[in-house]
């Protein structure tokens, strides 16, 4: 090249931006310096099969599935200058032996081949070894359909086993904890579960015993996998070795529909995927969001969901006639509620909202309060100790959202006044949404009986519903669209995974109809869709300005700075900064 001095070489252009040039399957791309080869291949959209590698965990490189062919420019002799081709790259000298893509980083002018005879042969060999002792359990294995071993044995495996010797027998169906079952024969020794318990859950109860082909995963003697983050190991397991007792033999994964939503058990708002078939929820799993919950979720939260098929669900509006609840239609129930509320003066009515309601529902609650002429409404505070991982001290999923939509910094303050008012007999009518007053709210049965009117909007037939004069059946968090703001000020979206049971409806629609019945306005004056309601919020509350529920990503968006951080995410960012994990 004659104009070498005047034109910059690709390596210099890349170096200025902190990048390196890598050739992957014949195409040159630029990736950040220090990227793992497997991540570079992911950027180039080339699949490298792997089992043990996980970006959130350390990389021991023990499954050997991610073997690729690698090449670097040959080192020049002492007096030899590097030779560049017309595009400015050096010729790649391919290495005769493969390397693992998960634990090696890219270098300038590196070449990676994810295809070709050598790589294919390596994968076939690794697959053959992995399948030697693997049982033919696929028809009964819960992992079938989402099993990496199943997928890669279709692509890289042999149709028939050459192994004629007796297979190694290992323990099957071992109860290693209250929520998890282990099948050692299915295990491929990727060690993901061991590393998760050690590095993320910080309770290293799992480990390998024995050597060679007899290697077995097990719990430390005398211990059990009781950790509240244990079920994440089931998600991590690339095969069916670890299965969840909750989901075990319930449904094959290929029947399940996935809906992206969020966890509503605490203020963190972990991103979730809800797996449903028909109108039944079969499981809830964490969904990756590096700013909220990484790839994890606490067991107590994932197992705690309200399903439309639950026995205690309210399925029709109820009105109490002579002390007995009678089913009625929505028109009657709303009309009865509005008429009953009109009998009281504003000072005699109190409204209790909930930090478990969505922004849209809370905004409608505020509209209802304004319609009735009530000045303030209260939510029930739920403060418990944080677990210093993902469970926030605030067990309400939407306290921040309530502060924003109700335009009130201390939304729980008036609750004590209401309680006192009910006790003194000053408050005679109570409208309560999504709360059981006999639990955290601190009301007693006598308080509720002393009320002249109690209207409850809830999903389940709890004690408050039993004491209520009018019961309005609402939708659970898995059955509604809406938004919440988590403790860190992130606006996140709930998507409906199933339909509310029978006559139950979305809460915001119920409150809207009640407001309409009270004001006597025509239905056109109220929002007709959740998006229309969100637009009203967006125009009236500055933090929501310019946002739209339809365009909001399922990963959410930060709309306000609360200064609260999530401990697990903080720790993970530190580990990423130290280069321990890819992140």
């Amino acid at each position, binding site marked *: 090249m004659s104009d070498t001095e005047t034109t910059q070489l690709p390596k210099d252009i890349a170096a200025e931006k902190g990048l390196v040039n890598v050739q992957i399957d014949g195409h040159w791309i630029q990736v950040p310096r220090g990227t793992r080869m497997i991540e570079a291949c992911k950027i180039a959209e080339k699949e490298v099969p792997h089992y043990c590698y996980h970006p959130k965990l350390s990389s021991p490189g023990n499954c050997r599935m991610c073997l690729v062919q690698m090449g670097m420019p040959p080192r020049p002799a002492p007096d030899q200058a590097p030779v560049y081709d017309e595009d400015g790259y050096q010729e790649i000298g391919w290495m005769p032996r493969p390397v693992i893509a998960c634990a090696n980083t890219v270098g300038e002018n590196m070449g990676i081949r994810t295809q070709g005879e050598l790589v294919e042969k390596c994968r076939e060999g690794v697959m053959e070894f992995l399948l030697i002792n693997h049982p033919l359990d*696929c*028809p*009964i294995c819960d992992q079938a359909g989402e099993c990496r071993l199943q997928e890669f044995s279709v692509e890289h495996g042999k149709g028939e086993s050459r192994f004629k010797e007796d297979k190694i027998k290992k323990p099957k*169906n071992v109860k290693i904890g209250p929520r998890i079952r282990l099948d050692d024969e299915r295990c491929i020794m990727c060690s993901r579960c061991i590393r998760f318990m050690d590095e993320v859950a910080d309770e290293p109860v799992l480990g390998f015993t024995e050597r060679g082909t007899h290697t077995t995963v097990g719990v430390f003697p005398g211990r059990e996998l009781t950790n509240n983050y244990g079920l994440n190991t089931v998600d991590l397991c690339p095969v069916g070795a670890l299965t969840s007792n909750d989901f075990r*033999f319930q449904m094959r994964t290929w029947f399940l529909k996935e809906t992206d939503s969020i966890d509503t058990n605490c203020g963190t708002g972990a991103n979730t995927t809800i797996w449903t078939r028909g109108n039944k929820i079969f499981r809830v799993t964490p969904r990756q969001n590096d700013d909220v919950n990484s790839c994890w979720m606490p067991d107590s939260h994932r197992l705690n969901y309200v399903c439309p098929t639950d026995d205690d669900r309210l399925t029709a509006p109820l009105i109490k006639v002579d002390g007995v609840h009678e089913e009625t239609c929505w028109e009657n129930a709303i009309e009865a509620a509005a008429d009953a509320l009109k009998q009281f003066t504003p000072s005699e009515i109190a409204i209790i909202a909930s930090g478990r309601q969505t922004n849209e529902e809370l905004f409608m609650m505020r509209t209802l309060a304004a319609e009735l002429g009530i000045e303030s409404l209260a939510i029930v505070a739920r403060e418990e100790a944080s677990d210093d991982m993902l469970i926030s001290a605030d067990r309400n999923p939407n306290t921040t959202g309530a502060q924003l939509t109700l335009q009130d910094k201390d939304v729980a303050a008036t609750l004590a006044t209401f309680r006192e008012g009910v006790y003194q007999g000053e408050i005679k009518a109570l409208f309560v949404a999504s709360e059981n007053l006999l639990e955290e709210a601190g009301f007693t049965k006598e308080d509720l009986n002393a009320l002249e009117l109690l209207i409850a909007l809830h999903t389940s037939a709890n004690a408050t519903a039993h004491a209520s004069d009018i019961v309005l059946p609402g939708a659970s968090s898995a059955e509604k669209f809406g938004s919440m703001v988590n403790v860190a000020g992130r606006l996140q979206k709930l998507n409906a995974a199933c339909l509310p049971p029978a006559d139950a409806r979305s809460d915001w629609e119920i409150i809207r109809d009640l407001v309409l019945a009270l004001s006597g306005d025509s239905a056109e004056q109220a929002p007709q869709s959740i998006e229309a309601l969100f637009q009203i919020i967006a125009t009236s509350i500055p933090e929501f300005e310019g946002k739209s529920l339809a365009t909001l990503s399922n990963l959410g968006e930060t709309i306000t700075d609360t200064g609260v951080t999530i401990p697990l995410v903080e720790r993970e960012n530190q580990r990423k900064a130290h280069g321990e994990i890819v992140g």
Partner: protein
Amino acid sequence: MAIIKIKRPKLTLADKLYLPAVIKGLFITFKHAIRAIRGKTHGAEQFNSSGLGVTMQYPETKWDDQLPDYYRGVPALVTDEQERERCVSCQLCEFICPPKAITIIPGEIESDDPWAKVEKRPKEFEIDMTRCIYCGMCEEVCPEQAIYLRDDYAMTGLSRAEMVNDKKRLYEIGGVRTGLVNKWNEIK
């Protein structure tokens, strides 16, 4: 593609009158009727019927022993020579079933069962015979050789509920099938 023009056939007066063709047809019918009465029809003794030829007097006579091996009748579950119910409720038949006739509720085998190591079997298995189209895909997809289309074809019922075969009924129809691959035996 070239366009081929087809010439209409030129009809004679006899063709146009239509009546000669009717008489010709009647003549053929009479010929067969006489042959049937004389018991000379092809396949008469094969059907072992009333001697009136190809007409089989169903349901007095049935063709059950004439059914070929590949006949696709009512789908049913089978047990093997070890009296093990072969179905492990993998639900592949439920997945493949084009008219969605199969409903399975999976269940776990209790630990005190001799076949506890199989771990899984159907708690409930229902085939709705008002939906079944006898396509045989369930049999083809089954990885455990547990479901077969049997010889029964006369499924009747007075209500829709009666037309749903539950697990007990399916094993009654299916019976025992021997000589199948048994991967759950002690040597893996």
